[in-house]
C-alpha cells in the first residue's frame, strides 16, 4: 500500500480534530507526504450521538505524491453509530472500520436512526470491522489515575489514536512530546493521556492478527525544511510578510464569519509585527476601516466569506474609485445566502469579477492549495500596492482548513521587496504647482500621498473625478475617459504577473482548465490520465482578472477545453466569453471537493 486515507469521526466533543492533527503531524515528521481536511458541523455542539453532531478529520498520508485529503477513506474510526452512519457511504469498499462498541447502544442507534446494531448486518459485510471497547478500556487503563471518570473518558480519543498508531507503525514520540507541552502544568492530564495512547497501542498489538498492520515508508520529498500549514494560517502569514516587504503597516478590518475567521485569529496573535487587527461592528465597517487605513499609508486588508463580501460591495467600488491599495479576501463557502457555512464551493467567482455597481473592475486572484495561500496573499498585497487598486483574493473552505506540508520558503530570495507608490515627501509641489493625485505612470498607476505629508494636501471621493486633478467632475466625456482608464489600469496588471504555466504538453486533445482550490484534484486526475498515455494537459489559473497574457495562446493548442469547477460553470462562461473556445464544463455543487476518481472519469470521457 502506497498511500492511505484515514478518517477519524465522532461527536463534536470527542476530540476528533485533535486526534487527526496528531496523526498527520506524526506522519509528516516520519517523512510521509500528507494532506488533511477537517469536516465539522456548523453547530458548535449539536446533540450528542446524532448525525448533526458528527465531526470528522481526514488524513491522507503515504509514500507517494499526495495533493488532496483523499477521495475515499481506507480506514474509518467510528467513535459512535452516528459517525458510522454518516461516513459509511464514503468509505472505500473493503475498507476497515474501527468501531467503539461501547457507544453502540440501543439509545445511540435510535438517535441516529439505526433500527438495531448495524455491526454484523449485511450492509457491513463488505468491510473489515475491528470492534474495540474504547471507552471502557480507557477507563480501565486509567483506573489508578486520580481523575474523575468524566476526565478519564475524555482521554478515549488518545486510545483510538494509539490503535491507529500501531496499525500504521507510527512513532508515538511526537504525540507524547505534544501532550507534555500542552498539559505540562497538569501532570495528571499528561499521565492520563500518555497512558491512554499507550494502552491503545498495546491493545492493537494484542489483536495484531485481526488488525494486520501496514508499513508506510517515507515519501520521496524534495530535500528541505518543512512544516505543516493550513490555508488560513498561510494567508495571514503571507500578509505579514508582504507588509514587511513593503515597509508599511498591516491593518486588518474584519468581522467574524465562517470559514474566514481564522485569518483574523492568526493575525491577532502577531501584534509584535506591528499588526493592527480591528474587529469591526459589521462587514461594512470592516472594509471601510481598511480603506481608511490605506488612505493613511498602511495596507488595508479585510477578510470574509460570500455573504460578508456582498455587504462590502459598495465600499469595494469606492476603493476602485479612490485607487488605493486594498486586499479583500473571500474564503468561499456554499451559497447563496447563509448557504452551507462549513462546506466548500467556488460559486463566488462572478461576485468577485462582476459583483459591484458601475464599471468597477478589480484584480482577482485565487490560491490553489493550502500552502499557496502564503504566496497568493503576498501577491495580492504586491498587486494592490504596485497598481494602487483593490485586489480580491479567493480562497475556499477546503484549502482554508485543509493542511499539508510546506517547504519553508527562502524569504530573502522570493519575498524580500514590494514597491510602493509613495510620493517623495522631500519634493512637494512648488509655487503655483499643484499636487495632481490622479496623474499616472506608464501603467496608469497614480501616486500615493498620505495625510501628514506637507504640500500634498488633497481630497478624494466616490464622485467621478476629473482626470489628473481628481476634482469632482460631471463632464460626460471625462467620465467615459476615467472609466476606460480604470479598466485599462487593471488590465495592465497583466504586465506584472507571471506567464501561465501548463502541466503536460502545450498542445493536445483536451485542455483541462481549473482555478483556485481544486488544484490538488485536477492535477492528480490529469497526471493519472497522462500516465495512461492520454493527450491531456492542465491549465490551472491563479490569476483570474486579468489573466496572464498567454492564456489565449495555450487554449488554441487544444481541440477540446473542459473547465472543472465547484459551481454551475462560472469560469467556463468567462473563458468562453473571452476566448470563444466552446469550452465544456464539469461541475459539482454539493459543498464537497472534487474526487480525483470522478474527474478521471469525466475528463476521460472527453478523450
Amino acid at each position, binding site marked *: 500500500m502506497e498511500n492511505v486515507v484515514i478518517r477519524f469521526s465522532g461527536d463534536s466533543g470527542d476530540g476528533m480534530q485533535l486526534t487527526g492533527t496528531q496523526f498527520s*503531524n506524526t506522519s*509528516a*515528521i516520519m*517523512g510521509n507526504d500528507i494532506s488533511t481536511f477537517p469536516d465539522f458541523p456548523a453547530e458548535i455542539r449539536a446533540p450528542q450521538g446524532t448525525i448533526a453532531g458528527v465531526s470528522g478529520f481526514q488524513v491522507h498520508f503515504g509514500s507517494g505524491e499526495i495533493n488532496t485529503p483523499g477521495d475515499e477513506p481506507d480506514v474509518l474510526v467510528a467513535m459512535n453509530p452516528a459517525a458510522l452512519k454518516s461516513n459509511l457511504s464514503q468509505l472505500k469498499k473493503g475498507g476497515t472500520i474501527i468501531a467503539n462498541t461501547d457507544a453502540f447502544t440501543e439509545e445511540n442507534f435510535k438517535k441516529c436512526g439505526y433500527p438495531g446494531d448495524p455491526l454484523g448486518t449485511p450492509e457491513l459485510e463488505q468491510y473489515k470491522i475491528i470492534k474495540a471497547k474504547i471507552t471502557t478500556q480507557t477507563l480501565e487503563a486509567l483506573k489508578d489515575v486520580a481523575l474523575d471518570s468524566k476526565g478519564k473518558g475524555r482521554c478515549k480519543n488518545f486510545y483510538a489514536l494509539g490503535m491507529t498508531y500501531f496499525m500504521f507503525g507510527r512513532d508515538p514520540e511526537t504525540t507524547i512530546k505534544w501532550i507534555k507541552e500542552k498539559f505540562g502544568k497538569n501532570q495528571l492530564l499528561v499521565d492520563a493521556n500518555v497512558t491512554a495512547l499507550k494502552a491503545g497501542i498495546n491493545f492493537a498489538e494484542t489483536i495484531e492478527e485481526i488488525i494486520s498492520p501496514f508499513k508506510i515508508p517515507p515519501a520521496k*520529498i524534495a*530535500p528541505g*525544511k*518543512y*512544516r*505543516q500549514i493550513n490555508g488560513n494560517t498561510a494567508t495571514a*502569514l503571507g500578509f*505579514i*510578510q508582504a507588509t*514587511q516587504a513593503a515597509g508599511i*503597516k498591516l*491593518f486588518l478590518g474584519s468581522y467574524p464569519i465562517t470559514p474566514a475567521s481564522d485569518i483574523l485569529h492568526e493575525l491577532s496573535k*502577531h*501584534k*509584535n*509585527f*506591528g*499588526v*493592527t487587527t*480591528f474587529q*469591526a*461592528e459589521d462587514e*461594512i*465597517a470592516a472594509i*471601510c*476601516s*481598511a*480603506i*481608511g*487605513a*490605506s*488612505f*493613511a*499609508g*498602511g495596507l*488595508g486588508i479585510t477578510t470574509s466569506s460570500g455573504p460578508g463580501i456582498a455587504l462590502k460591495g*459598495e*465600499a469595494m467600488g*469606492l476603493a476602485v474609485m*479612490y485607487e488605493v491599495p486594498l486586499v479583500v479576501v473571500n474564503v468561499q463557502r456554499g451559497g447563496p445566502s447563509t448557504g452551507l457555512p462549513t462546506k466548500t464551493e467556488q460559486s463566488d467567482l462572478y461576485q468577485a469579477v462582476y459583483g459591484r455597481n458601475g464599471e468597477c473592475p478589480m484584480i482577482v486572484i485565487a490560491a490553489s492549495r493550502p500552502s499557496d495561500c502564503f504566496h497568493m496573499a503576498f501577491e495580492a498585497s504586491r498587486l494592490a500596492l504596485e497598481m494602487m487598486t483593490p485586489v480580491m483574493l479567493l480562497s475556499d473552505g477546503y484549502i482554508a482548513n485543509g493542511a499539508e506540508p510546506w517547504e*519553508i520558503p527562502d*524569504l530573502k530570495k522570493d519575498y524580500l521587496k514590494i514597491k510602493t507608490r509613495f510620493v517623495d515627501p522631500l519634493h512637494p509641489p512648488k509655487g503655483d504647482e499643484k499636487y495632481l493625485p490622479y496623474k499616472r505612470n506608464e501603467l496608469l498607476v497614480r501616486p500615493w500621498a*498620505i*495625510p*501628514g505629508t*506637507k*504640500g*500634498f*494636501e*488633497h*481630497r*478624494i*471621493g*466616490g464622485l467621478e473625478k476629473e482626470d489628473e486633478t481628481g*476634482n*469632482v467632475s460631471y463632464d460626460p466625456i471625462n467620465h467615459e475617459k476615467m472609466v476606460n482608464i480604470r479598466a485599462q489600469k487593471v488590465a495592465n496588471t497583466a504586465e506584472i504577473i507571471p506567464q501561465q504555466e501548463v502541466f503536460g504538453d502545450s498542445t493536445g486533445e483536451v485542455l483541462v482548465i481549473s482555478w483556485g482550490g481544486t488544484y490538488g484534484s485536477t492535477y492528480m486526475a490529469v497526471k493519472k490520465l497522462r500516465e495512461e498515455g492520454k493527450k491531456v494537459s492542465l491549465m490551472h489559473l491563479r490569476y483570474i482578472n486579468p489573466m496572464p497574457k498567454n492564456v489565449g495562446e495555450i487554449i488554441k493548442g487544444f481541440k477540446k477545453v473542459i473547465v472543472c469547477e465547484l459551481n454551475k460553470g462560472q469560469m467556463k462562461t468567462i473563458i468562453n466569453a473571452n476566448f470563444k473556445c466552446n469550452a465544456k464544463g464539469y461541475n459539482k455543487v454539493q459543498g464537497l471537493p472534487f474526487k480525483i476518481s470522478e474527474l478521471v472519469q469525466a475528463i476521460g470521457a472527453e478523450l
Partner: protein
Amino acid sequence: MSENPVYAKKDFVPDQEVKWCPGCGDYAILSSVQMAMTKIGKTKEEICFISGIGCSSRFPYYMNTYGMHTIHGRAPAFATGLKLTNPKLAVWIVTGDGDGLSIGGNHLIHLLRRNPDVNVILFNNEIYGLTKGQYSPTSRPGLVTKSSPFGAVDRPFSIASLAMGAGSTFFARTIDTDPKHMIEVFQAASEHKGTSMIEVFQNCIIFNDKVHDEITNRANRDDTTLRLEHGKPMIFGKEKNMGIRLNGHSPEVVKIGENGITEKDLIVHDEASVFLGHLLGAMERPDFPVPLGVIKKVTAPTFDDGIIDQIKMVKEKKGPGNMEKLLNSGDTWEVK
C-alpha cells in the same frame, strides 16, 4: 507637532467652488470650522476631514486639508482605520442626521463606545436634503414631506440621549447662526482626548426652513435655550431670571426670586458628570430650554491609545516580529 503653526482662515479655503444652496446653514458652519482650524495647533497636513453622503458630507471638498468623501453612513469606520494607522492625525468626521443616525447609526454608536480620539460634527437639519426632502430620524412626528405626505409617523431620536447611551465622552451642541459659539465648541472638541461629538442645529433653507426657528430667532432664543458653562448655575432667559432646579429625580424650570428661589437652588453645570449628561440630554422643548455648549466631557481611555499600547506591550513581551523565526517555530522537520 512642537511648533505652533500660524494660519489665517484663507489657508483652509481650497480652490473649489462651494455648491450648497444660497442661504444654507452649511456655509456658516464651514466658515466657523475654517476659523477654528487656525486655532487648534495642528498643521494643515495633519488634519483630515472625513464624511459620508449628503449635503453636509460635501464638506471635505471645501477644506484645504487632507480629506475623504466616503460612502453613506460609514465615515466613522473610515476614520477609525485612518486614526489607528496614523494616530498623529487630527481627524474630523462630518455627517448629518440621515447619514449619521439612519444608515450610519450602527457605526456612530460603536465609534462613541470605542472612543478613538476623533471629532464628529453632526449637522442636524431634521430632513434629507440631497435626496430632495424626505423625513429623517430626527424629524418631528407629523412632518409632511415627499415621503410622508400625511405626516411622519416615526418617533425621532434625541441625539444627545443616544450619544449618552453609547458612552460618548464629549458631547456638545451649537447653532449655525452663532459663529462665535461654534468656534468655541469646535476648539473645545479639538482639545478633548477621545471622541468629541458635536450636534449643530443647522437650517435647510429649501426643505425644512426655519425648523430651528424657535431656538434661533432673536425674539425668543434667550428663553428657549440654555447656555451651559462648566461650574456655573443653569440660568437662562432674556432677563437672566430663569433657572433649572432639581426636584426629586427630575429637573424643573424655575424663576429666580419667586417662591424664595435663589441662584443657590439651581443645578451647577458639571461637564464631568455622567448623570448630569443624561439629564441634560433628556431636556427637550417645549418643557425645557435646549441646552447648548459642552454638555459632557469626561476622561476615558481612547481606542487608539489602547491599540498602540497593546502592540507595544506584545512587542516588549515577545520581541519584535521575525518572520523567519515564526515560520521555523513549532513542529518542523528536515527532509534529506
